[in-house]
């Protein structure tokens, strides 16, 4: 999977979790939490969906890596490039 593919995958996951949020103008270098209404339970669901859809494990200590789109893509690249 390319970086763009990973970005799309993450967007799709967030779209499923927050169906009513407008994700069109999501800035890639700002945190998700400051741009959309993502609470801690929603964030956990991102981790859960990555596990469910792609069998990717994200340990709790790595959660800060998922704060922005850019950092998420960077973090997930080695885990997802084989997909």
């Amino acid at each position, binding site marked *: 999977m390319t970086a763009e593919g990973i970005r799309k995958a993450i967007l799709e996951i967030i779209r499923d*979790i927050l169906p009513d949020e407008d994700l069109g103008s999501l800035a890639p270098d700002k945190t998700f939490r400051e741009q959309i209404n993502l*609470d801690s*339970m929603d964030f*956990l669901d991102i*981790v*859960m969906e990555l*596990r*469910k859809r792609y069998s990717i494990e994200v340990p709790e200590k790595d959660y800060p890596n998922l704060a922005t789109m850019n950092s998420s893509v960077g973090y997930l690249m080695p885990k997802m490039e084989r997909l």
Partner: protein
Amino acid sequence: MRYDNIIIGAGLSGLAAGIRLARYGGKTLILERHDRAGGLNSYYHAGGHYMDVGLHAMTNYNPHGPSSAPLLKLARQLKARLADFGLVPQGHSKIVFPGASLSFTNEFAHFQDEVAKAFPAQKDNFAKLARLAGEYDELNLNAKHASGRETVSSIITDPLLAEMIMCPLLFYGGSREGDMDLGQLVVMFKSLFFEGFARPLGGMKTVLGLLLDIYAKEGGEIRLETGVKQIVAGDGGVSSVVTDMGEIIECARVFSSAGLWETVALCPQARPEGVQSGPGRLSFMEAVYVLDRPARELGEDSSIIFFNNTPAFIYKKPDEPLDLRSGVICFPGNFGDNGVEGPPMARLTSIADYAYWIGIEDPREYLRSKIEWSAKALKAIGAVTPDFSRNVVFRDVFTPKTIKRYTGHINGAVYGAPDKLKRGETPVAGLYIIGTDQGFLGIVGAMLSGITVANLRLAGKD
């Protein structure tokens, strides 16, 4: 046959936990002793009429609230659409004490105005209480205990107003006699006053049907008429459950909504250390009336009435079969234009003495007693609402005995034990408590309870 998760009880907490676990936590099975889902909030038919169990209203009605609002969070977590609950908001509810009556709606400002009108000297104090509630983080599962009643009384210096505020909070979420933990009080204050009431148009059947559908879509399994008589645990924690019929089902985790002490009866090693009190002591009788005309036509337009006929609100197990001094009256038709499918109804709930009701063995004596005491309860609300006794087409009454029979909860305690397990953890690895004894109460609370404990485990806290 081995499951990742077994859930004991197909009530609201079990179904909600089931949805989360089935989606993210592997192979999940719900075991329910009764022939249907719902538990403390189920449904049945009597005399040809559909009847809800335990449903007056759902709290936390705040459909346009921030995404952190409990009801919206709940819908997201369950992958449900809020519209599917078919919620119809209340008109207004009332708290009626001798010499004072306060109404409240789904807009908090209305309640504030009512308090200011009836208790002008307490206007600022009430604002202070509201601020405290607003700033309190009730989702902090590690908060220290404090007395809710003492906190309220230290701020609201008119005892009558303090009692009137405590009354609905206790009736809808009090597991302890006479008081509630400050955290719980804040949850109830926000749920009832900041947010509000609504009822699902189709009743519990709609809500349960929705949850069961979602659960099935996530691949969850459920077995009705399958009770659990033992939870087997070894050194490594939970290993299996044994059903009433003796079938052994292996599992990695068990989430029990049976109640803390009920679960300890299934698994003695689950007895928590440091928990002071035993099972809860508060149970209720409820009479459900089918009326021949809408309550509005009889002159009653309140959705719910919390009444108390003495200056102080006594919230404890009564010495008599029923406590006739207080109660809750719900008019489902007074939600929205007509918040109920089917005929007009009224529900009257009174605090009841479990020991009396469970002690009646002869069915005819039980029926006679139900008729006698529900008639007394109906008489006692004469000053509170127009008399509808001549408009009753059908009546069904359930008692603490009924609650015990269909849910297994000790003492018929619908709000569970006074001491809660906020994180749902027991000394047994892999065995968790969800539902009333985890601590989130009511219909919305129960669902959040299942979700919260399931999420703790899904996040890898094992």
